[in-house]
């Protein structure tokens, strides 16, 4: 099964501050708690610090202050801890061409679990399971560049699912997808038995998939509430450069 039970909290971010080497402060004290099995949307305008926060979740960036823990394990620069944290946090990057770097789909999906030390039949089983979860089993031997964009994004999701993550973090999952691919991805994501943190400014997509949303702006969490409540608060959205698409009315 994808998703492993450890503690009741998948992600616990406490007071994370981060300043880039050039002095620009990207995060000024972020607190975020995601219980296991929840689907949470992280909303915010461009430049709010969303991607910076995501890179903290698996220890690629180390906070200047504060701490991040994943499934009860606090992220430290220790190699063994980092390896485990990177298994627990599956990040799906925005551009699938950044994520899929090997010549075939199956090899790419195997890359993560192989880094965990899996080999042989066990590894093959992980690959099959992850590809089946995103409906891409029949494309396992194809080259990523020969797949459609939507298919590549689904394979990118499979590459991290194969590591049995505690939490799946998706960076702008709906970007560049046509409406059908967008709907198919939503169906797949809804069916996955994992905790999900979805970084997006696609508000209808957040409403469709996540019950709870947080708004990050200027390096701070400025709102944390049920998605529908947030989407009905037009002044709040306007203050943080978020807008509903034309003709879209959120459910009250």
């Amino acid at each position, binding site marked *: 099964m994808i998703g492993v039970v450890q503690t009741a909290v998948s992600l616990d971010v406490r007071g994370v501050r981060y300043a880039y080497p050039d002095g620009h402060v990207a995060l000024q004290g972020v607190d975020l708690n995601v219980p296991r099995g929840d689907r949470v949307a992280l909303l915010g305008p461009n430049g709010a610090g969303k991607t910076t926060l995501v890179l903290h979740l698996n220890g690629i960036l180390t906070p200047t202050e504060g701490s991040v823990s994943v499934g009860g394990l606090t992220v430290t620069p220790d190699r063994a801890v980092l390896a485990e944290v990177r298994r627990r946090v599956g*990040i799906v990057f925005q551009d699938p*061409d950044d994520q899929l770097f090997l010549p075939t789909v199956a090899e790419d999906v*195997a890359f993560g679990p192989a880094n965990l030390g899996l080999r042989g039949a066990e590894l093959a089983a992980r690959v099959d399971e992850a590809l089946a979860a995103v409906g891409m089993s029949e494309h396992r031997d194809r080259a990523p560049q020969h797949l459609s964009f939507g298919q590549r994004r689904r394979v990118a999701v499979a590459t991290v699912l194969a590591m049995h993550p505690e939490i799946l973090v998706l960076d702008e999952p709906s970007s560049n997808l046509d409406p059908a691919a967008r709907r198919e991805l939503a169906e797949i994501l809804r069916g996955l038995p994992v905790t999900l943190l979805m970084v997006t400014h696609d508000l209808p997509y957040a409403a469709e998939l996540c019950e709870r949303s947080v708004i990050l702006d200027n390096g701070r969490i400025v709102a944390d509430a049920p998605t529908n409540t947030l989407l009905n608060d037009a002044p709040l959205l306007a203050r943080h450069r978020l807008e509903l698409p034309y003709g879209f009315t959120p459910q009250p």
Partner: protein
Amino acid sequence: MGAGHGHVLYRESDSPVHRLPPEVKIVAMVVFTLAVVATPREAFWAFGAYAVLVAAVAALARVGPRWLLSRALIELPFVLFAVALPFLGSGDRVEVLGLRLSEDGLHGAWNILAKGTLGVLASLLLAATTTTRDLIVGLDRLHCPQVLTQIATFMLRYLDVLVGEARRMRVARISRGDDPRFLWQLRGFAAGIGALFLRAFERGERVYLAMLSRGYTGRMPAVWQGEGAASAGQWLVAATVPVLAASIAATAVVLS
């Protein structure tokens, strides 16, 4: 996108040569080329025998002479130097078609031309019967340094992406009225190359981040390398060509 389906060098087929594992073909090609290079240039008969070997493998691989020869033209710029040798060489002169040519130079030209052509033909046969992907797998199985095979793998994966990016940038440039016909109008193109380099560089960084996120520690995990590796029988079958070539080379050395 969808580019990259067509192959310039690989010829899809199910011949016995195609079915051989890549590593044995690579070794066979290298040994064959070494044997050719080691042959003394005066042993003309040996080069004839090598040509027969190449022709036999080509026939077995169902690669036509036209296909081979048209692609072998790639060696032209490299052997141009050979043409100049008979005129520039020193030593005894011989009369050929009314021209007084250096005998040593003629031998030198023949040496470059014959060995170069045989080497190119052998490499083309390898490329025609092995996909680029398999070539990398083969090199990996031969314990080629992983850095090299990794670079080749990345190139294989991202060449299409880069070409696609370059094409989109060109279309965008032309759409805004850029029409470089002369050298001094190349500014847009040159800036495009710079931008492409930056994009490739940034992509490299993002790919690396994505790899780190999946637990990359600086070494590619050996995943399915063992699968489908060559059997002793396949090594033996593929050894016929290099063994024959080596015997020809040895005979030529002894006779000369």
